[in-house]
């Protein structure tokens, strides 16, 4: 299984019936492809839609209906549209149950950096800071390492997205949570050992007695 599929499938297991969910650009978007059979959730697109549906068939895209990356999407029956003030009211106001975001770094205390690399890549934070600040549950979906370097670090060297710690990090190697503000290894990916996770991770991880494999 490729890294993105592992991450997408595992994150999808975190969604509960009726949740209002915001998926970020990139790997998080893939989560929608792996919803457990029969699970009904609402996807919010922060450009003003609840009820985001699949990418329309060739030739059926509506020019005034896109996701937050400007890509064509569809709207499911029962969808609702609203302006950006309400969209971010939903986000900041605690009405979004789960936000899934990409990450550049997550540190041992669960703090996320995902919006800029000073002097190199400064795209802007878009909606990320509001999402981490306001969603009930924050899940980071990212590769464990980039070009051999761990993205789970002792302390973020990149500018933080929020001072609020995230709730869960799902990578292609591991699931990590932050009980009491400390990183704890909850699961490993199929075929990955605890020792292998520890070998590539630059943050101290608490290892419980039992670390099960992800059930994908």
């Amino acid at each position, binding site marked *: 299984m490729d890294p993105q599929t592992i991450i997408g499938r595992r994150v999808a297991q975190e969604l509960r019936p009726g949740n209002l969910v915001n998926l970020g650009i990139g790997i998080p978007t893939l989560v929608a492809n792996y919803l457990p059979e029969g699970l009904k959730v609402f996807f919010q697109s922060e450009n003003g839609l609840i009820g985001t549906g699949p990418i329309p068939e060739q030739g059926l895209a509506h020019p005034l209906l896109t996701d937050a990356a400007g890509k064509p999407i569809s709207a499911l029956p029962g969808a609702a549209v609203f302006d950006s003030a309400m969209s971010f009211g939903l986000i900041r106001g605690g009405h979004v149950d789960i936000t899934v975001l990409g990450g550049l770094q997550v540190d041992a205390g669960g703090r996320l950096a995902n919006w800029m690399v000073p002097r190199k890549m*400064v795209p802007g934070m878009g*909606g990320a800071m509001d999402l981490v*600040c306001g969603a009930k549950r924050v899940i980071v979906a990212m590769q464990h390492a980039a070009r051999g370097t761990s993205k789970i670090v002792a302390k973020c060297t990149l500018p*933080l997205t929020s001072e609020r710690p995230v709730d869960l990090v799902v990578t292609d190697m591991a699931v990590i949570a932050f009980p009491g503000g400390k990183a704890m290894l909850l699961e490993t990916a199929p075929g990955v050992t605890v020792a292998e996770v520890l070998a590539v991770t630059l943050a101290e991880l608490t290892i419980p007695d039992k670390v099960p494999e992800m059930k994908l």
Partner: protein
Amino acid sequence: MKAVSTEQAVAMIPNGATIMVGGFMGIGTPERLLDELVRQQKSGLFLISNDAATPGKGVGKLFEGAQVSRMIGTHIGLNPKAQQQMLNKQISVDLIPQGTFVERIRAGGCGLGGVLTPTGVGTLVEEGKRKIDVNGRTYLLETALRADFALVHAFLADYAGNLSYALTARNFNPVMAMAADTVIVTAEHVVPIGVIAPDHVVTPGPLVDYLIANE
């Protein structure tokens, strides 16, 4: 509300004006006004817009000929021209959280001095801002934003200037229509009064100064 041509509307905008432009990645942006801003070579613009769209689309067009000197937005990552001009310090760009961006504009349109938001506390965003504790939580004081002109795109506009919007093309448009001295609107369709039911009007006609006539 007065019906004007795109040429007349853009001629009213002086070089150096502060303009708010609706749209999200170019969706819901008044493209005809952007094309005319390019044609009339307006320069030194202070742009207040969520993003820089992509090259050749929406407000992205303004970066081709370096017509923007300053920008407040939330994300410019998908327009390499805008990125380059910012990193070269040709333009000054304030990147702020999107929820803060829209609330500052909403405050500007609603007669408020600003808003208190928890977003950005403990990050680079808090630099130079007042922190205020309310009921045990820390907030940043984010001041109101207004513009000389708001360039708004609606789906329907009736002869009285009442506006309704379509799908995700609504985004920042109704909020910006409250927050500028002069509001200029393009619409996909200009329709007789009564076609937009009162319950479906999102932006009431008196907020609109100029509507681009069918040309």
